[in-house]
């Protein structure tokens, strides 16, 4: 049949025609690796973007969590500190009838330190910044704090403050021992719960630590939730330094 004859005859046609067509066909064959290369390049670009963007995004997120005040200034710059937000439940605090301040204002209008600490974060930050000149005092006191006696530490911490910064309230840092409810994996404190605000000793147990707080906390009512912005010395994770406190009044 003619079609078979043509098919057979085509087997012996001039090779230049076959090569010409084959070149076109091979272009199609080469198109695949090119597409594959594009895909690999796209993946590489994606990985590159992820590698750079994710840390930047994480950093931004961390920054947004940090308190707006100058927490980093409390401790000396060569000390690794971190500031996080902690919540303190004041279940075991003695009730103070004078404490009826609204949410977010601390401390209540007490006779003493209220000028420096009252209300907004900016003012609280200002106080703390003022206290930053006492970095060395905090660092020096930290080991002492771990060893145990809060009452002993408090005057030590305050002495420096009062000398260098006359605006620091009464030179009395109030100390409270709290039980750490949860540590995050990297050892940072997630949130805190009051156990005994006036405890005289601090356990070396990592579940307990004390907060050095330059504000009067004795009036906190039971059931209040206290959010503490704090820093701590990485060499002494059992002592944290409150930089700012917000109170949510209890029922």
């Amino acid at each position: 049949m003619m079609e078979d004859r043509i098919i057979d005859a085509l087997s012996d046609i001039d090779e230049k025609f076959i090569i010409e067509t084959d070149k076109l066909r091979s272009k199609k064959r080469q198109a695949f690796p090119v597409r594959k290369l594009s895909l690999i390049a796209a993946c590489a670009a994606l990985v590159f973007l992820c590698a750079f963007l994710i840390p930047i995004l994480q950093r931004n997120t961390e920054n947004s969590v940090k308190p707006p005040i100058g927490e980093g200034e409390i401790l000396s710059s060569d000390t690794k500190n971190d500031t996080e937000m902690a919540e303190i439940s004041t279940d075991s605090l003695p009730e103070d009838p004078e404490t009826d301040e609204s949410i977010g204002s601390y401390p209540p209008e007490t006779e003493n330190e209220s000028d420096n600490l009252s209300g907004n974060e900016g003012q609280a930050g200002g106080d703390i910044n003022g206290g930053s000149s006492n970095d060395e005092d905090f660092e020096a006191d930290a080991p002492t704090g771990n060893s145990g006696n809060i009452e002993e530490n408090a005057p030590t911490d305050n002495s420096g403050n009062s000398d260098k910064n006359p605006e620091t309230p009464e030179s009395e840092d109030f100390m409270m021992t709290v039980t750490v409810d949860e540590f995050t994996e990297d050892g940072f404190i997630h949130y805190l719960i009051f156990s005994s605000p006036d405890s005289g000793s601090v356990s070396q147990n990592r579940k307990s630590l004390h907060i050095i707080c330059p504000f009067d906390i004795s009036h906190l009512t039971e059931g209040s939730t206290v959010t503490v912005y704090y820093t701590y010395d990485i060499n002494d994770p059992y002592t944290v330094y409150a930089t700012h406190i917000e109170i949510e009044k209890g029922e």
Partner: protein
Amino acid sequence: MQDEMIVELYWQRDESAIKATADKYENYLLKIAYNVLSDTEDSKESVNDTYLAAWNSIPPHRPSILSAFLGKITRRISIDIYRRKNRTKRKAGEYALSLYELSGMRDNEPHPEEKLDEKLLTEALNRFLTTLKPEARSAFLGRYYFFDSLKEIARYLGISEGKTKTLLHRTRLSLKEFLKKEGFEL
């Protein structure tokens, strides 16, 4: 590996020539075989037969374009396999069986007249192909030499399937006229 080196291996009767051929051209040859046979196993068989045929024909041949040389062998072998299979299928009916029995009277080797006829037809086709524009020529050979699908031809010519179909239709009509003029009985 360069084609010249592979051909040299054949000439040295080095069996690694077959591996080198397979490494470089197996997919290319499988595609040609599969276009004819539409069966993976048959295609593999055809390609393996191609390696053997290449081993037997180099030397004395020294192909300048190895891909074209191997492709031609694969195409021929695949067409033979296709025809053999179809012949077997035809055994099903008694009429077909009688034809098959009668076909056994023929020699496998084509008659010299048939050979001459095929040669004349090939020469006519070569002349016809030179009259075609490159696009039409590639479409024609893509379809009837490599047995590519319309979709594939359209893709590598960069035209639509519809245009490819029209192009092939016109080329077939031109070929019919051309062969009539050349004195071939259609």
